[in-house]
């Protein structure tokens, strides 16, 4: 059984309910046990750090302190939201790197009778935990309804793989964890070139035009690659791409219809869980097409084995992609079987 | 007392267990030769004598004094100085006088602590917390007992020493050999070795006399002697048993290793070695088979109480001489 502390963050019960519901739904089958930490508070999202550092870090560190007390040094702290994940990791990192900051923050925490020793906690993103701790094998075991034929654009956003203080990801610019996970679900994963581009974050509030352009790029590219849906790991990305897709269309006179789903929702589908228990229908850009494309399909047969001999190469030979390190290589192998 | 043709012999027992005295008696018939060749003037354990008798003697009138035991209290110190004055040849006899030996281990603790422990542990029935006092008034007047020194010192830390005879206790055959030597010197048949030299021992180390097979060493883990069944023909250190033989002066015929126990180092450091423990630290550590700090630490965890391991006999005679609590107390 994999036990973790969960820091849900503010959005999970509101804008990202679909994420939370689907997460709860899939936790059991894959043996993921998340214990929400008591009395957590907002991570300050992206703005607070821009305004005043110490209180912002103190705000974040409070959660770390609570978690550290709860974890007996055993459990890792898991954040499903990229912003929360980055903030928590960032606070831990800089408190360690700059003892001065650590001291100030701890003074602040002391007021609440708390303290946090930097480095005493492993802060991890949900995707990281699912791919590396739960493992693709377990995932595949649970797949009863492979997402065969569903073209998905894996989209991580900018805050998960960067700056990646603890080197948890296969690559900072082009990580493949989400790709291999979705492949494991049987989906047809496109090589989405903008997987780590920015979704606009809070620019939707501050300077919509900027945000619209960023959103357009992401959706347009996914659309060009004929994706049926984009898959995110972050409530904010999901919200921006989903809620502002209409306005973006209006702004550019385009007419994109690109459902934005959480990877946990697709996992749920593949596990054969009822769409309603996975928060389907909460999205603004309807994902009905996704369900249809799966619903109509008879119990799908295993995808055709790849051809023995690679077909003759046109023009000049291409270089082989770089090994992403054994850990990821075997992931890729598992997917390929 | 009447002048005597025979040269005078003395032996004294300071802070030590008395094993050295037994060792001397263990030379069997040879003891008669001692009596035949020497006039034994002072040997508390063997015959009755008073300090004042010794004080009355002429300086340098004793030819040979075997001094065993470390300097633990002011009485030891007083007698050491007294015998130095009275003796031509003063021999630091046995590990205690040479390097402190087991009593020297007390130098790791504050002398208060020592007394406290001695008079106040579950094995001691002392309900009223009574501790000894250095002076006490009785009707006959004030009586005194010796005062503990904060740090146990070796003989040569308080007086000038002519010869050193190591061992806990010195091997009887070595004692016999030394006595033979002195006698043949008396008969003009031999020369005394240069002042300050170590007598009654070899000048390499125990391994020299150890019969066990040895190879290039590389230690992956340290073992306690009872923890494993050591190969009886192979070097103990190679089997992870911290055997002090490599650093310990030869002269004992490697008795312990021969009997299957590791050498604990009672013959002290080899010739010209400044710090016995340092030699062992350096040599043991050098052959640890790891370059990874954490693994090294793990391996070293197997070496329980390194200080005791390396300074069991040599603490008072080492460079550091004592632990922090003890020398902190020195100021008192």
């Amino acid at each position, binding site marked *: 059984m994999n036990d973790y502390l969960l820091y849900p963050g503010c959005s999970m019960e509101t804008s990202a309910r679909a994420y939370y519901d689907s997460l709860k739904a899939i936790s059991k089958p894959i043996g993921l046990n998340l214990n929400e930490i008591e009395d957590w508070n907002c991570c300050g999202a992206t703005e607070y750090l821009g305004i005043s550092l110490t209180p912002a870090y103190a705000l974040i560190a409070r959660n770390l302190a609570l978690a550290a007390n709860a974890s007996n040094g055993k459990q890792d702290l898991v954040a499903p939201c990229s912003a929360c994940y980055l903030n928590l990791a960032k606070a831990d990192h800089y408190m360690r790197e700059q003892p001065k900051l650590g001291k100030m923050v701890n003074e602040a925490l002391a007021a609440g009778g708390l303290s946090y020793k930097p480095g005493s906690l492993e802060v991890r993103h949900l995707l990281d935990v699912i791919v590396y701790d739960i493992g693709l094998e377990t995932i595949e075991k649970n797949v009863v309804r492979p997402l065969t034929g569903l073209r998905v654009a894996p989209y991580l956003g900018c805050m998960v793989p960067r700056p990646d203080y603890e080197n948890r990801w296969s690559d900072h610019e082009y990580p493949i964890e989400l790709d291999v996970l979705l492949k494991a679900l049987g989906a047809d994963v496109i090589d989405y070139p903008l997987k780590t581009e920015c979704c606009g974050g809070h620019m939707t509030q501050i300077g919509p035009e900027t945000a619209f352009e960023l959103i357009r790029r992401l959706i347009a590219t996914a659309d060009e690659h004929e994706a049926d849906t984009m898959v995110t790991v972050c409530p904010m990305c999901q919200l921006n791409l989903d809620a502002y897709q209409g306005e973006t269309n209006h702004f550019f006179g385009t007419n994109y219809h690109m459902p934005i789903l959480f990877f946990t929702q697709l996992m749920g589908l593949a596990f054969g869980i009822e769409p309603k228990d996975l928060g389907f229908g909460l999205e603004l850009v309807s994902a009905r097409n996704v369900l249809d494309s799966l619903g109509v399909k008879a119990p799908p047969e295993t995808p055709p084995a790849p051809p023995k001999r690679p077909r003759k190469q046109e023009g000049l030979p291409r270089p082989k992609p770089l090994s992403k390190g054994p850990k990821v290589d075997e992931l890729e192998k598992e997917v390929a079987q | 007392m009447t002048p005597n043709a025979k040269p005078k012999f003395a032996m004294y027992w300071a802070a030590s267990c008395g094993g050295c005295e037994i060792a001397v008696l263990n030379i069997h018939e040879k003891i008669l030769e001692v009596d035949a060749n020497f006039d034994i003037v002072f040997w508390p354990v063997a015959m009755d004598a008073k300090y004042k008798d010794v004080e009355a003697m002429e300086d340098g009138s004793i030819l040979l004094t075997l001094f065993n035991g470390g300097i633990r209290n002011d009485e030891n110190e007083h007698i050491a100085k007294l015998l130095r004055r009275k003796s031509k040849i003063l021999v630091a006899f046995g590990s205690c006088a040479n390097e402190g030996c087991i009593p020297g281990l007390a130098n*790791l603790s*504050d*002398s*208060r*602590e020592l*007394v*406290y422990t001695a008079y*106040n542990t579950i094995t001691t029935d002392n309900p009223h*917390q*009574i*501790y*000894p*006092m*250095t002076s006490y008034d009785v009707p006959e007047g004030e009586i005194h*007992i010796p*005062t*503990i020194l*904060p*740090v146990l010192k070796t003989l040569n830390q308080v007086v000038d020493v002519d010869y050193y005879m190591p061992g806990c206790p010195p091997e009887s055959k070595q004692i016999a050999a030394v006595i033979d030597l002195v006698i043949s010197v008396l008969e003009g048949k031999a020369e005394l070795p240069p002042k300050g030299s170590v007598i009654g021992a070899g000048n390499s180390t125990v391994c020299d006399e150890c019969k066990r097979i040895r190879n290039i060493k590389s230690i992956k883990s340290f073992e306690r002697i009872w923890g494993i069944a050591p190969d009886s023909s192979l070097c103990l250190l190679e089997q992870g048993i911290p055997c002090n033989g490599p650093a310990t002066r030869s002269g004992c015929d490697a008795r312990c290793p021969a009997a299957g126990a590791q050498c604990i180092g009672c013959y002290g450091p080899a010739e010209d070695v*400044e*710090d016995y*423990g*340092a*030699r062992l*630290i*350096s040599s*043991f*550590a*050098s052959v*640890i088979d*790891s*370059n990874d*700090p954490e693994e*090294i*630490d793990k391996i*070293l965890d197997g*070496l329980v*109480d*390194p*200080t*005791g391991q*390396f300074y069991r006999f040599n603490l008072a005679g*080492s*460079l*550091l*001489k*004592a*632990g*922090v*609590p003890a*020398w*902190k*107390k*020195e*100021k*008192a």
Partner: protein
Amino acid sequence: MTDQFEPTIIGFTCNWCSYRAADLAGTARIKYPPNVRLIRLMCSGRLDPTFVFKALASGADGVMITGCHPGECHYIEQNYKALRRFHLMRRTLQGFGLEPTRVRLVWASAAEGAKFASEVASFVEEIRSLGPLHWGKNNGKDDVQSPTQQSKPEIAEVPA
């Protein structure tokens, strides 16, 4: 001189890396406190624990052992021997009731003059905070403030 405690530190360097690091600190005019006095060995592998004990017993308040980075030893791997000895030496010193931090091991390549200087500076600070050792005056004359004041049970006056 201010009345703040100025520790005396003996430093051991290897001929190839750390001594050259000290040279570099010099040529680059990087300042560091004057409390450390260096001894040049050919290699940190020459570092005999005896030297460290000698220094501590003779009045040094701390000892700094330096050498090439692991894997960069001019003698290929001898600095690893220094590493092993360092670990055992520290454990032994602890047995003597001595703060293990009074002996520090520092890797500095010939290019790391700045690192060398900052290591010296931080070590001096560390020793300063520990206070004087004065083991040298171990023979019963002077007042010695012990760095480790562990409280003893209060007991009746005993001979001491």
